[in-house]
């Protein structure tokens, strides 16, 4: 499947209206697996959070401890003082099963994506900003164009622009590793083997709190990502991520 991209992009003689490969098969497949996993992790994570919607800092935290902050929602446990007069049904069993299953799938998918991105040059070619982009002028210009919702040049349909590159790299290299690490830091078995995984954060409850904030950051990314796709043309961009093809004619209409 990978050679579709190679064949099409090298065939410069094809008419402008012809559709060309936008995303490689591996990028598309890993993208949608990651999307499904992220949504599963988000829903199951919220369900688990509801059983104790309080956050702490340090090693321990419970209802006898002053929280760092509380989420003002009802809880699925009677023991948690929420101010609401009712207790939500417990959903933690399937949520925890689903959370770890989705985590395994997204981690394995992520490893596959990173390795193949290194091998095919996707990382160097499409994700790491170009040398010329490492300047404040270029960066502020890119932000200004985004804020003004200037329609990007057609060439941009074939690779990621500077802000996309920065955002995607931040998600791939910072947020995803951090959310996995803080997740593992909450595992009593894992930290028995790798204690620094949790002590680096100052304790299990600190790791849980950071896990929450990284999730918020990932959710913000998702919302902005989808928002940008809507602005750029939802169907053409979504089709490109499903079929791998995008037509420049479509982009201009």
């Amino acid at each position: 499947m990978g050679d579709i991209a190679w064949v099409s992009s090298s065939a410069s003689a094809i008419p402008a209206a012809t559709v060309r490969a936008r995303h490689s098969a591996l990028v598309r497949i890993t993208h949608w697996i990651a999307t499904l996993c992220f949504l599963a992790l988000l829903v199951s994570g919220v369900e688990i959070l509801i059983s104790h919607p309080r956050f702490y800092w340090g090693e321990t935290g419970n209802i006898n401890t002053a929280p760092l902050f509380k989420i003002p929602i009802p809880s699925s446990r009677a023991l948690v003082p929420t101010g609401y007069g009712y207790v939500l049904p417990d959903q933690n069993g399937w949520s925890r099963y689903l959370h770890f299953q989705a985590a395994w799938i997204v981690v394995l998918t992520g490893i596959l994506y990173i390795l193949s991105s290194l091998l095919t040059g996707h990382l160097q070619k499409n994700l790491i900003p170009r040398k010329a982009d490492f300047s404040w002028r270029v960066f502020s210009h890119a932000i200004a164009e985004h804020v003004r919702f200037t329609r990007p040049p057609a060439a941009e349909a074939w690779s990621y622009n500077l802000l996309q590159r920065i955002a995607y790299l931040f998600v791939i290299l910072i947020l995803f590793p951090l959310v996995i690490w803080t997740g593992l830091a909450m595992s009593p078995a894992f930290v028995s083997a790798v204690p620094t995984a949790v002590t680096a954060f100052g304790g299990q409850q600190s790791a849980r709190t950071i896990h929450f904030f990284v999730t918020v950051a990932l959710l913000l990314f998702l919302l902005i990502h989808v928002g940008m796709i809507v602005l750029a043309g939802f169907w053409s961009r979504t089709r490109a991520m499903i079929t791998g093809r995008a037509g420049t004619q479509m982009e201009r209409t």
Partner: protein
Amino acid sequence: MSHLSRRKLITSGLAAAAGVTGLGAAATIAQKNGLIPPDHGGIYGLGETLTYASHRLLTKHSLAREFSRSQISQPPLANEMAPLKESFKRLQAGGFADWRLSVDGMVARPASFSLAELKSYPSRSQITQLACEEGWSYIAEWIGVPLSHVLETVGAHSKARYVVYFSIDSNWWDSLDIDEAHHPQTLLAYGMNRGELPVGNGGPLRMRVPRQLGYKSVKFINQLTVTDNLKEFGKGLGSASPEAGYAWYAGI
């Protein structure tokens, strides 16, 4: 489709066949080495098996983190629990003098121990964290007899693979694989923070498994059964937890 050459189809087919065979072989090896959890069936079996197998390999010799006395959570936390039964209240009224821990199954010498007998055995005290699957946690000192000592005393069979433990509240029972049961930090705890183990924390006798989440540390333990087959217990999923929708292995 014209891009998909016949050679490519053949290689993909071979790769897929090799993959399936590889998975089959991996499953057999995993089963032989005790890397498959009893609740491996169903749609979440993949994630559960990956977690359990990787943890078994990673934590073979690891010890749960221990803390200093100054880190003990004050005041101590007692989680919500089901109302105590009449049979429990009668034993409590008698100061638990008649509390017995019976041990049966694959053992040379089935036995029944009083609390005084358990307390006469070499004790171990450790300050560890109890983390609940809900997200809260506390640190306490736990004092008890290592489960491995009780297993030696009754002469557990070398082919035994699990230790099933029962609460006086028959709705609660659980099991540990034999490695976790023999782990030096796995205790039958009767003391907490330099005192008796309070009823609110599972007294007079609680299983304490610090490398797993709190729900494996079942309260009010009065029976152990050593076995090589979890299928004979309940619905065969290893504990009451999977029957209530929760994972049997609680290391994460």
